């Protein structure tokens, strides 16, 4: 597919996203509100930048009810004393607490791959950030749809 058609497809998708996913009026669709994830991430990295890449966040794009979601993170790293992953942090943007889990690693870990199961409150972005021994930060983001969140009626205020 050529670049022109890729752009066209993205425009269609983007335009449709604007047209079709506009929030409904009043309180018909009650999404769990965004938490303070951006502030928490900023606190972690300080003034340094985060680069997309080297981190592979593996979580299903669609889960039934967010009760028990398998999640794994793999970071491309030789895991030597000179060059290794110090920590893998996972954040969510709509759980009550943005910090989900932090794994602390070192060269003795052998490889930077962690697996766990987590709970998701609602459809949202999940962000994995790897902190490397050279002080750099790398990330991957996955959007996860939680289908049961939509199945339920809006909770009364």
């Amino acid at each position, binding site marked *: *597919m*050529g670049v022109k*058609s*890729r752009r*066209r*497809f*993205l*425009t*269609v*998708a*983007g*335009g*449709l*996203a*604007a*047209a*079709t*996913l*506009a929030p*409904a*009026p*009043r*309180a*018909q*669709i009650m999404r769990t509100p965004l938490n303070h994830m951006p502030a928490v991430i900023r606190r972690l990295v300080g003034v340094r930048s985060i680069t*997309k890449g080297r981190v592979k966040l593996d979580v*299903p*794009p*669609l*889960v*039934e*009810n*967010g*009760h028990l979601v398998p999640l794994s993170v793999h970071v491309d790293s030789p895991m030597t004393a000179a060059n290794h992953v110090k920590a893998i942090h996972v954040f969510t943007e709509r759980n009550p607490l943005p910090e989900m889990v932090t794994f602390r690693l070192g060269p003795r870990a052998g490889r930077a791959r962690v697996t766990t199961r987590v*709970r*998701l*409150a*609602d459809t949202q972005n999940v962000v994995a950030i790897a902190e490397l021994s050279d002080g750099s930060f790398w990330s991957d*983001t996955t959007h996860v*749809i939680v*289908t*049961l*969140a*939509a*199945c*339920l*009626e*809006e*909770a*009364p*205020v």
Partner: protein
Amino acid sequence: MDSIEMPRVSRRSFVIGAAAAGTGLAIGLKLPPFGPDVVRAADGSPEVTAWVVIKPDDTVVIRIARSEMGQGTLTGLAQMVAEELECDWSKVTTEYPTPGQSVKRKRAWGDFSTGGSRGIRNSHDYVRKGGAAARMMLVQAAADAWKVPVAECSAANSMVTHNPSGRKVSYGKVAEAAARLTPPKDVPLKDPKDWKIIGKPVKRLDTVDKLTGKQVYGFDLKLPGMLNAAIMECPVFGGKVKSFDAAKVSGRKGVKKVLPVGDSAVAVVADTWWQAKTALDALPIVWDEGPNAKVSSASIAEINKAGLDADQAFVGNKAGDAKGALAGAAKKVEAVYAYPFQNHAPMEPMNATAKYTADKCEVWVPTQNGEAAFAATLAASGLPADKCEVYKIHLGGGFGRRGAFHDYVTQAVRIAKQMPGVPVKLLWSREEDMRQGRFHPVTQCKLVGGFDASNNFTGLHMRISGQSILASVRPQAMKDGMDPATFQGLAPSGEFEFGYKGIPNYLIDHAMRNPHVPPGFWRGVNINQNAIYIECFMDELAAAAKQDPLEFRRKLMAKNPKHLAVLNAVAERAGWGKPAPKGVFRGLAQMKAFDSYVAACAEVSVSGGNKVKIHRIICATDPGHAVNPAQIERQIAGSFVYGLSALFEQECTVKNGRIEQENFNTYGSMKIAQMPKVESIVMPSGGFWGGVGEPTICVAAPAVLNAMAAAMGGKRIRSFPLKNHGITLV
């Protein structure tokens, strides 16, 4: 948002076999050699927007994300797209996009879930915009071809007209060009007063196929090389399979495999379903019944009863100081009500057909939520999203069983995974369906009302004791331990706002007691019992105060004008205040649920102390907007069948940890001869969009119960179903 990844678009179009097609056409994303810009359906017809495909012969294919289960949502959504699209309604057909497509195209069609009476009210805005955008693009394409300003063109009935010259072109001829345009960002919608299709009682799009037998249900599905599976899960919830003796049945004719499914079920796969089922019946299975094998309805009732007076409870709604008002009351009225477990019992038992290979897992299933079925498929197959697909089939009844629970999909995929390459149709027997429900929760309710010395109603304490649905199904939605769904129809504000804000002091709270029986969303969810509890008790209070039940309510509803409007409408239609025919008595009920206001008035006679005849029942609903009034009337009547069947006949009891009722001989429903005449008043007041599928179900039972009490000299029945009291519906 971070950089958008280009979705992988397959060059193969995937086609659903004719047997599975349901409403027909497949959806594929074939990229033609001539111009890669246009997204196309499998037959090459262009998508103008993701919502609308236009064929050269002007047939319009509208994509519907929600599921049709008899409630008419398919037709209602199509009406809304067609309204803005300005197409010829007689040429409209519909098609279900698949959830796999939805994930690939970043949810171009929004939410697939069909529940909570939300199909129309949660999608109306964006589906109308999808149709309007398509219309704007078609008009633009015609204007471009004619080299005239868009403002001089108009669209109607699938034709674009250049008004000054009278030139016309049909949609089919400009669809190709329209599909290449960029969709507009600003999409204004019509004023409701200009609607031509929305609001009209148009015939449903799915009726003909049902009448001719062309409609395919999951139950009917036949795929080449398909085998059939019967399954039994441990009947005691939470139990497991200890062992089973496959050798006893493996040699039977047609039996191919005897398999464990997860750790709590066993399936037999055979050439025919009957061979599978009879083998399963003969298969010796030893269960490890787990910790709940001694639970019974009586033991659950005892726990719920204790909760009625417990100190700790979650407060759902309150005003003033109810406890103080009741402590100082000159007269108190007290009543305890109880509501049982119930099963959805759709006519089509749970089923799913799955085919698994290491490269692809496909599932054909009747589901209220295609995306949830897809999520279950991903989890059970272990394959990534781009290797899975779910094909939605029309449902033979959903009612909430097929929305939030896809245990049958998980089972079907687990079976198919043990027989790679073979399509396996898993079909539950009626008995399995009755045992493995997701049940209407069991609760009791103690209501205490207080009057002062001048006979003014001053305080109400409503204590609900019993099961929370969300605690089991979606704990993330709990609020500091409280289940807000328990208070449907009783809430401080919103979709389920309490209708008696004029009561000076009230406290509505919930002592949560969760048994091991898995709860689910039965049609109406918690409004069924809540409406009985509050509306029957309001009549008890009115009687104690020697006031007319309607007048008693009206005085408390000054802050609830829309609740009052529907109540007044049914009362007026029934002739409340004027004498009823001899032997006929009237009863009223009202509630707000799923953002609609509903009320009912029943006219009932009782003979021999226990034979009830419902002569007439009037329902009023204000859903804000009415997309298809004829369909709403049918939904009202249908909801009354469901709700009155429950009231008179339906209870799931627990013995030795399992559900006792296994078929319709012990779990009945209304017959045609018992069905009363239903009169509907559809009175949309505008300005909001309320649901239709569920709200009305809750007012039939209390209206009938209140009429019965009037007929029986004030005798109240407070536990259900009525057959337990020897009461029959004639």
